[in-house]
């Protein structure tokens, strides 16, 4: 039986070096590229008709648009408008990474901690930069919620500071762990089926059980793929709101 962790291994396809860094085009990069191409083709075809009464494809793209737009409206407010393309792209990248990974023999780039950390840190840095740019030193008042007693303020400040810096970690680890765990479970059950078949004619019958289980799991993983993309995006929205609006 194959190692269930083998699916996460990266193999370089096109060696490439920039300075001292090895930035080879790998299977991970390939699936990122596939995601980009798929979304570009989908969105271009969907937007092309520009119909007043949308067809299916256009309707799907408009639903995605409205979905992200309402997410920003509700979680960031009117100031979040200029971040719409960013949040939209973030959702598409995470969503495609999660769901393309469910195709057999594909690669799930969101199951790599470095990818999720990079995305989470991008949001985190943005929050800090925008926060300081907009509010200056007043940004620190984010760490003392309104109504905190003065004697409790230093303690709360430390607590809030820690929870603030933990954000990118929880954000990235949540996505990474979900994706990795899901794919390991899928692989393990697929492995059961394969090893049953190797046992002979009885094994063929027995292999039905993990196969059916895997089918159910794939449906479940599709839900997780969407859900985690949604959670990642909505949390990014909420963190962004902190930078844009500081109450009090």
């Amino acid at each position, binding site marked *: *039986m*194959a*190692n269930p*962790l*083998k699916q*996460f*291994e*990266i193999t*370089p396809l096109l060696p490439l070096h920039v300075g001292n*860094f*090895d*930035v*080879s*085009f*790998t299977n*991970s*990069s390939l699936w*990122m*590229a596939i*995601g*980009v191409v798929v*979304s*570009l083709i989908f*969105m*271009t075809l969907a*937007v092309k008709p*520009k*119909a*007043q009464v*949308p067809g299916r494809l*256009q309707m799907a*793209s*408009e639903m995605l*648009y*409205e979905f992200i737009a309402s997410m920003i409206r509700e979680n960031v407010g009117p100031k979040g408008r200029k971040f*719409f*393309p*960013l949040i*939209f*792209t973030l959702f*598409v*990248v995470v969503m495609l990474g999660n769901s393309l990974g469910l195709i057999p023999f594909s690669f799930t*780039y969101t*199951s*790599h*901690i*470095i*990818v999720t950390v*990079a*995305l989470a840190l991008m949001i985190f840095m943005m929050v800090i930069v925008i926060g300081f740019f907009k509010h200056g030193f007043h940004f620190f008042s984010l760490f003392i919620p309104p109504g905190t007693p003065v004697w409790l303020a230093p303690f709360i400040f430390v607590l809030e500071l820690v929870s603030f810096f933990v954000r990118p970690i929880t954000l990235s680890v949540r996505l*990474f762990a979900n994706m*990795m765990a899901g794919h390991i479970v899928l692989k*393990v059950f697929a*492995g*059961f089926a394969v*090893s*049953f078949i190797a046992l002979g004619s009885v094994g063929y019958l*027995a292999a039905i*059980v*993990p196969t059916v289980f895997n089918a159910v799991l794939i449906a479940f993983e599709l839900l997780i793929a969407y859900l985690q993309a949604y959670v990642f995006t909505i949390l990014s929205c909420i963190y962004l709101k902190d930078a844009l609006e500081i109450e009090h």
Partner: protein
Amino acid sequence: MKLRFSQFGFFALTLLVSDVTFAATEAHGEAAEKGLPQFDPTWFPSQIFWLFVMFGLLYLFFANKTLPALSKVIDNRRNLIESEMEEAENLTAKAKAVQETYEANLAKARLNSTSEITKVEDKIKADMAKAEAEFRARAEKEMAKLEKSIEKSKAQVMAELESMVAVLTAEAVEKLADISIKPAEVQKLVGEIANDTDTKEAA
């Protein structure tokens, strides 16, 4: 319950089998002792680099092409719906105004027709009254004329009667008493007698 236990046993068995095979492959030393490939830093730069290249590509495309086009389509549709709703409201208002004027006109026409009818009725009544009055006046005039002529003929008849009485009296007197008397005299007498009776009657 029994079935469940057997299923559980089956799963336990499969787990065991897989564990054994897993251990076997690991023992072969293939990809073993490396731990999770995700924590191997060899490919970190490549991952980050390509992630941001792809993210950037997608962002540029979405921000400049897809999203403006989509928002334009959605805005256009919203505007169209709004303008059509507005037009529909305008048309409804117009229709309402038309109906109101129609109703006002109808009421006016109804009022006019009643006044017309009363006018005509009044005219007819007046005409009738006029005709009646004319007729009555003419009738009275005719009656008066008739009465006058009757009176005149009566007087004439009376006068003729007097002279006839005088002639008859004269003739009777002549025949009975052989006294010749002129009718003029008799008439004078008769006139006196008549005057006498008249005065007596008057008294």
